[in-house]
């Protein structure tokens, strides 16, 4: 990615974020209770949020690489979001699951929650930064991350 970006790069990111955040508000994913109700099998509506969003983005991921070679504002190639699989996906996923199940919050929804007026969510956002910081410190120190994977639960 080049240093001198297209002047519309930041405005477009902002517009994308605005739509994303409005959608999180409208779907009530910004309400931890609604997520917890889903996880407790009291309201399955969250499935429509996740799959609705994935279908819409999936169409773009499938179509854009066939229509154009690169994105207009960055010149970056259109590629699918593919991340390598290793056991960290399972370990990290499980730790994330404990947090999601305990609190009903996830990163995007937490930012949106602040926007709908949920000041209490600052506890969760502080916690997320603390967790990401602890993980980053640990990763920065351990040269071989695979040697320390105990305590995954």
């Amino acid at each position, binding site marked *: 990615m080049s240093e001198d970006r297209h002047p519309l790069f930041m405005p477009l990111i902002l517009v994308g974020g605005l739509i994303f955040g409005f959608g999180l508000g409208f779907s009530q994913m910004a*309400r931890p209770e609604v997520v917890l109700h889903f996880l407790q099998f009291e309201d399955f509506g969250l499935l429509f949020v996740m799959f609705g969003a994935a279908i819409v983005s999936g169409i773009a991921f499938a179509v854009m690489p066939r229509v154009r070679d690169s994105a207009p504002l960055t010149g970056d190639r259109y590629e699918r979001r593919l991340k390598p699989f290793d056991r*960290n996906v399972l370990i990290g996923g499980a730790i994330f699951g404990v947090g999601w199940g305990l609190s009903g919050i996830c990163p995007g929804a937490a930012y949106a929650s602040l926007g709908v007026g949920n000041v209490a969510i600052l506890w969760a956002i502080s916690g997320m930064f603390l967790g990401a910081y602890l993980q980053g410190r640990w990763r920065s120190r351990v040269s071989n991350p695979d040697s320390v994977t105990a305590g995954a639960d």
Partner: protein
Amino acid sequence: MVADPVALQLAAELFPNGISRYAVGGLLVGLGAVVIYVGTGIPAGASTFLESTLSYVSEQSRFQQYVASRDWRVVFTLGIVLGALAFAATVQSGVVTTSLYEPGTTGELYEIGGVTLWTTDVQAWRLLVGGVFVGIGTRIGKGCTSGHGVCGVGSASKTSLVGVLTFLTVAIVTAQLVAALGVSP
């Protein structure tokens, strides 16, 4: 129109708040990701913001790899907050009404300057401790509900599908256990 009463009853039990607010909200979430992807080629996830923002204040090598993307990630997150605020100022405040939106009964509504705001009843310790686990887990697991759940599943990435199934399963077990222990809300 004659509707099947069994199907209606099932829908009422599985979806007590209807499905339209979820479907419309989900389509908008996807559209937000699409706008960014079409313009920039970036499949945006929300959780990298945590690490990239920490690079402003920490010299840890782990965070420095995100220096190139940290500015736009702040703008993306700011957009999410403002987008949700726009929702609060319109639909949540009743300025814009639509049959697609079911308000719900959780938490507490309050008002500031004519804008109806909402706050959660979920206890602070749950939010804080849950947040720490979320912060650690998304970073080890390479993604969250938007990175893996929306962009990854949308890309038909096997890694992301496994990631989503993992955190969904563990989250369900955790939430059921916490509820069984009598913790509410």
